[in-house]
């Protein structure tokens, strides 16, 4: 469902050229749970942004569900993001002045769905994350774990083909983090592909595959659990 061939990213200014990601190949199949690990500044988020069509690669090709994305315009990329990708961020990124319902509904607003269709999807997504009764609450009235659950519901509401999670537990205590991880695993078990950037190797071991990004070089780590044991 996702294939990257010889993909690379270089940031250029007038005087400096910085290689953020060296050329790499990657293929992700439907239903996989991939953890992306690596030290800070290694290029994990750049990788995730390119995967989520928020940045463009400097070279190489990228197919998402069979569509070569590097040649797409703004509108087509936006539609692809809206229909195929769900984002989960470390800092939740909820809009404080919108209530939970409106936050979750946001991606659906950019599709031509009726009010009733949107309502059904929002309620289903909030049901999945256990916050159906908090629709009228505002983000500030929820705990960090609950806010991240709302962010997950927002990502799920659009029934995306895959979720991109950038350190989804980074701002949570261990108990809340465990809850979020188990929710992500449940979502994955239901067939949604997940690519998760994390610093936490323990969490990474819970993924089916682990990719390491180190100094811009992407490689796959086999048997991470054994290595850290």
């Amino acid at each position, binding site marked *: 469902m996702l294939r990257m061939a010889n993909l690379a990213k270089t940031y250029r200014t007038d005087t400096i050229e910085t290689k953020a990601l060296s050329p790499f190949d990657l293929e992700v199949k439907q239903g996989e749970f991939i953890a992306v690990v690596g030290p800070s500044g290694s290029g994990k988020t750049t990788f995730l942004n390119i995967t*989520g069509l*928020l940045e463009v690669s400097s070279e190489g090709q990228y197919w998402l569900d069979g569509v070569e994305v590097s040649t797409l315009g703004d*509108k087509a990329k*936006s539609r692809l*993001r809206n229909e195929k990708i769900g984002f989960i*961020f470390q800092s939740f990124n909820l809009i404080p002045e919108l209530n939970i319902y409106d936050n979750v509904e946001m991606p659906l*607003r950019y599709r031509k769905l009726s009010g009733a269709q949107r309502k059904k999807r929002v309620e289903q997504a909030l049901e999945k994350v256990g916050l159906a009764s908090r629709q009228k609450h505002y983000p500030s009235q929820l705990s960090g774990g609950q806010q991240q659950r709302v962010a997950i519901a927002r990502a799920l509401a659009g029934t995306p083909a895959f979720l991109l999670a950038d350190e989804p537990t980074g701002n949570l205590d261990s108990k809340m983090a465990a809850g979020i991880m188990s929710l992500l695993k449940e979502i994955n078990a239901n067939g949604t592909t997940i690519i998760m950037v994390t610093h936490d190797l323990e969490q990474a071991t819970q993924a089916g595959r682990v990719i390491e990004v180190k100094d811009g070089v992407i490689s796959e780590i086999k048997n991470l659990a054994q290595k850290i044991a």
Partner: protein
Amino acid sequence: MISYYTKLAILSLWKTRYMSLLAVIVIAVGIAATMTTYTINHMMTKDPLPSKSDSLFLVRLNNWSPESAYKNRDVETAPVYLSVQDAVNLIRHDKAQAQIPIAGFKDMLKLPSQDAVDAKMTFVRSSTRDFFSSFEVPFLYGSSWPKTSDINGEQVTVISKKLNDKLFDGQDSVGRTVELGEHQFTVVGVLDDWFVLPRFYGESTRAFKAPRDIIVPFQTQLNLELWSPNLQAFECWKETEDASVAAFWASECVWVFFWVELNGESEKRVYMDFLNSYVEQQKALGRFQRPTLNQLQSPSAYLKERDAYSSDSEIAVWLAICFFTLCLLNAMSIIMTKFQGKAGEVALRRAVGASSMDLFQQYMIETGIIGLLGGGLGLLLAQFCLFFSSQLYTHLSKNIMAMSVELMVITVVLSVLSSLVFGLFPIANAIRVQPATQLKSL
């Protein structure tokens, strides 16, 4: 989506309420200054009678001295007034659809039942019955006097609503009598509210003042020899036979504005031919010894020639437009600051699938609402400024300081459109944000 964007705009306006209010106030002040000056300038320079502006003409004939040109101008022009004898002759020939001499005098006015001490000095307009029909003057009671009154110079009058309120407590006064000096006049009509701006038909210096409150037939003024040299402007190039009013009437002195109504080019051409032949006849009688300069002048051309429109008001409009532009630039800077705080939200919306066009529409609606509120507040401020101006410049008609519904709509539309235009840059700047760099800043 419009309702969704409107909801987001209102939430955003509330979230950034102080900055939004500042932008609204800045736009309102600019639009108020512009529309106040524009309203005054527009009311001063607008077509006073759009339905008649192509068919009313001031008749100008060159009866001036054989010795020198009128006012010794390099490019000779005919006087703006006619002499009594020419005005009377043109009325008698009856060659136009309507013939409207504009003359006047002043006298003491009172009711017959009032004591002499209660009489008030009053300025009187004299004309023909065509004055009312050609200038589309509305009547509250009665009507204009009959043609016989023009022919015979009957002592009839039409009074303004204001004077009727004063003398007759606003009741139907048709058939009642008023005294002008030692003469009694029967009221045949009462005007409804009437203001023609600019008041083109008389002295250009009074173009923005209220019409006279009492109107009598021109022939009646002539018959009764009602003459007020210290009121009525007049110009003579030779002495009258004697000091009598009759001699003045018979002289070459000019003081009567003479308007005609002519429908279409052919009527105008025919009337011009008539004027030419009339002047030729008069030349044969020893008058009109200067070059023939017969002219049919439109109201706007007459007002322009007489400098009725002050260029100051036009300059004020341009200055106000400059001020408005500055206000809009200020508003633009406030909107830009406001939208800069939205970088995180823009990035998030881009991440969940909003296209640049979606965000552009959302922020255009928000900017449009700022413009709409600015326009609404600006409209209120402009009304206040106009009211204040009307209190300050009491010598000018209050109607100059009044905004028509059309101008009110223009005020709001202008505010919205200019806000949208000046909001384009901040909006373009806001949606240009790179989502990847902003998603951690929401």
